[in-house]
């Protein structure tokens, strides 16, 4: 195969923005976007709320500085301040560019882009397309990529990232429809494969494919990962599916109720009650369940989110989406019955360690979006900043890659690299293997939820690591029961599980090492933030023996001093 100038892995918001920007920067470049799903299926589509930008359309006194400060405070001061500044400074530009290119943003009366309030923001800053912002941005980006003639390889699965220790060589991928494994040489590779919060499985709001494929491939390729222990939990996921019931339900006055019929938030946040911050509400639900005040079901313990007292009229008018979700996914109409909910893993702050251009330590290898850690979210991401991150850093990485690709010479990918993947995949089908994929996946999700979930302790994390290592060992004996080369979903599931196991270990090890509570990371045994010891990023590597090694790197500070985080 002729080398590409740039191969982008992942066709969500970050990947497609990078492709669009790279082609605009240099239309002569040969660019391919490789994705395990058709572009419009990507998980960017699930983002509902919106994208933050200090346009000051609604609140005339909003400024970029306020946005930067909110982001840094939200991150519990773990975000790199120069990166957060770039994110917020570029925000008005990328949002307006998306608008110029056809994104159907909701409007104010004067015809400008409408903005709404969002968690952790001092001003009305969140630009939105009704409650389907991610979906419409993803469609608009896909349309623009079609306009520019971007070459898509849909339903190709990433097997490995190849480099020579200094610069990129390309990727090894599998055509999912034919099972054929091929090297795709490239001068530059942009990883845009999304997050890893699906490892919590039934306790996750994520798409089935948010399995951290690109991050795990980067780890195996010797690249550094950063801040993997930070996973954001949302308090109100649906019991069976983990899908999200947005904060709006509590905003409109919904009650959280335990099996004694009590509004239990009175114990934890007597004033704010159900409207306490996300992490606190999630922790409170966890305590109630642990102390036996949850409801029982085959799908696990849960709480009630009761909206009945709000009345049919209000529910239908203001919470139609939420009502539909409850009906579709739990078979429960909130007008007549309480919604069964429990906290759900929802966003992963950690990822591939990159600089402010999205560039890794290897020349020509980039990462953007949820798979990367710049870091703009630090220990806790603000709502409305994730769509923003994919746009801003998709653009910056796409541009940087396009400017630099011509000066890089692609090294040849050895047949040995391809052979290695071929052999691994053949081995999964061996009849001596006995472990079942579904069982390992469920056990991984359970141990993560129980031991590396909302509340963490040394004891729990050690148990978690032990169990993850057992699962890792058992995985060596996992069997792919489907012998076909055509669209072998059983094989893809196993490959995704391999990635989730690898990253689960980094989450648990990072959480064990970090002896403090910061943002989404709550240690019962170390309940306060410890800036003296832990105001730094965790860095993860995989050594030649396949073991995870930990180190740290300093947080880039700027004009904002460390402060206690209070709302």
């Amino acid at each position, binding site marked *: 195969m002729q080398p590409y100038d740039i191969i982008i892995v992942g066709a969500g918001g970050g990947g497609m923005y990078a492709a669009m920007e790279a082609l605009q920067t240099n239309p002569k470049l040969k660019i391919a976007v490789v994705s395990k799903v058709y572009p419009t299926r990507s998980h960017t589509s699930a983002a509902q709320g919106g994208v933050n930008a200090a346009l000051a359309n609604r609140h005339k006194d909003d400024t970029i500085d306020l946005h930067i400060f909110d982001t840094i405070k939200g991150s519990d001061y773990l975000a790199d301040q120069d990166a957060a500044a770039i994110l917020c400074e570029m925000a008005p530009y990328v949002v307006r560019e998306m608008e*110029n290119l056809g994104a159907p943003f909701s409007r104010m009366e004067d*015809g400008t882009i409408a903005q709404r309030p969002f968690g952790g923001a001092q001003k009305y800053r969140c630009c939105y397309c009704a409650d389907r912002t991610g979906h419409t941005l993803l469609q608009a980006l896909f349309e*623009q990529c079609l306009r520019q003639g971007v070459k898509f390889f849909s339903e190709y699965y990433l097997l490995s990232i190849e480099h020579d220790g200094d610069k990129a060589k390309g990727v090894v991928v599998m055509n999912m429809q034919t099972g054929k494994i091929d090297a795709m040489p490239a001068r530059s590779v942009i990883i845009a494969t999304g997050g890893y919060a699906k490892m919590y499985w039934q306790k996750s709001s994520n798409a089935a494919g948010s399995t951290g494929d690109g991050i795990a491939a980067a780890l195996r390729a010797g690249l550094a990962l950063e801040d993997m222990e930070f996973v954001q939990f949302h308090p109100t996921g649906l019991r069976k599916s983990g899908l999200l019931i947005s904060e709006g339900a509590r905003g409109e006055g919904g009650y959280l109720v335990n099996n004694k019929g009590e509004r239990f938030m009175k114990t934890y946040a007597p004033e704010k009650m159900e409207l306490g911050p996300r992490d606190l509400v999630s922790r409170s639900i966890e305590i109630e369940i642990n102390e036996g005040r949850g409801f029982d079901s085959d799908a696990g313990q849960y709480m009630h989110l009761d909206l009945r007292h709000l009345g049919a009229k209000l529910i239908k008018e203001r919470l139609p989406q939420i009502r539909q979700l409850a009906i579709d996914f739990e*078979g429960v109409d909130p007008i007549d019955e309480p919604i069964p909910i429990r906290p759900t893993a929802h966003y992963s702050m950690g990822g591939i360690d990159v600089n402010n251009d999205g560039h890794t330590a290897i020349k020509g290898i980039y990462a953007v979006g949820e798979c990367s850690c710049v870091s703009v979210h630090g220990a806790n991401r603000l709502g409305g900043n994730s769509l923003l991150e994919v746009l801003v850093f998709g653009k910056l990485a796409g541009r940087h890659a396009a400017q630099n690709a011509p000066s890089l010479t692609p090294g040849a990918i050895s047949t040995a690299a391809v052979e290695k993947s071929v052999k691994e995949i053949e081995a999964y089908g061996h009849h001596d293997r006995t472990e079942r994929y*579904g069982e390992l996946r469920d056990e991984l999700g359970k141990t993560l939820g129980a031991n590396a979930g909302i509340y963490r302790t040394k004891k729990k994390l050690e148990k978690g690591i032990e169990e993850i290592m057992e699962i890792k060992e058992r995985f060596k004996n996992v069997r792919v029961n489907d012998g076909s080369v*055509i669209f072998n*979903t059983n094989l893809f599931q196993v490959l995704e599980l391999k990635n989730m196991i690898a990253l689960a270990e980094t989450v648990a090890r990072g959480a064990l090492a970090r002896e403090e509570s910061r943002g989404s990371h709550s240690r019962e045994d170390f309940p306060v933030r410890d800036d003296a010891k832990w105001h730094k990023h965790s860095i993860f590597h995989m050594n030649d023996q396949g073991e995870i090694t930990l180190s740290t790197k300093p947080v880039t500070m700027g004009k904002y001093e460390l402060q206690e985080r209070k709302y």
Partner: protein
Amino acid sequence: MDEKKDIYFKIFRFNPEADTKPFYDDFKISVEKGVTILRAINYIKDHVDSTLSYRFYCQAGICGSCSMRINGVSKLACTTQVWDELPNCKEVDVITIEPMNNFEIIRDMVVEYTPVISKLEKYISWVTPRIKQEDLGKKEHLIPEAEFKVYDAATDCILCGACYSECSMMTSSREYISPLALLKAFRMVKDSRDTRSQDRMKVLNEDHGMWDCTHCYRCVQACVKNIPIMDAIQGVRNEAFLRGMKNSEGYRHAYAFTQDIKSTGRLKESTIAVRTKGIFGSVSMLPFALKMMSRNRMPHFFVKTIPGIKYVKKIFQKLK
């Protein structure tokens, strides 16, 4: 504990690598109330038969991956409750799962989706901005809420393909534009930021384009987002009238219809082909006409005016 029930799933199977023709597999599983079709077939895949093949991704009704025919109708497996499907079963508690229609089958419920993307490309399904490349991102267009409302519903489309699968016109010709591409075209034509509407209308006006829809409304029925797709199809046709695009079969067909109703209140079917396709174009219809004649199905050449024609004329005047 919730209500539970034994449900039978009758699932379409075909792997071209191993099977000479498709067949159906039956699975019996115990299902709790509140479980979706997707969760039920995931259970079968995890516990009974891991070779069962289908796509799914977000599991929340927004990515459009898991569209398949459930009890004969194309819908998303992830938003469809098992309990809600029970009244639609032909045999008691037997739910049929099949791939979408009008697509090539890759394996089981996995279909070849690329034709959808080719159609989006063919019909210029994107905004070509008014603003020059170097000026992008500097300021936003001022768009009145009223304009936005026109195509708001159309931007809900998740390209799941349910309308494509149910469309009766797609079944007769895979070259047909398809409801989802018509919907996208409408959304783009009505967007004041776009500069290529004229080119798009030209392609829409060609064979297999906007005039081929037969108004069966199955797309509207199938749409998982309840988008009024037929309004969009009428919308692009109206746009053709507004732009005076008279040189098309579709336009002539509609014009001939209107003239007939205006003058007699009835359709003069015997000449509609000539008026739509022209004399030369109609030659291709001759075998069809002869067949109709042989079965005594040829419409009468003379059409009687309806008694209430003055009221019809009044309607036309009012419309004017």
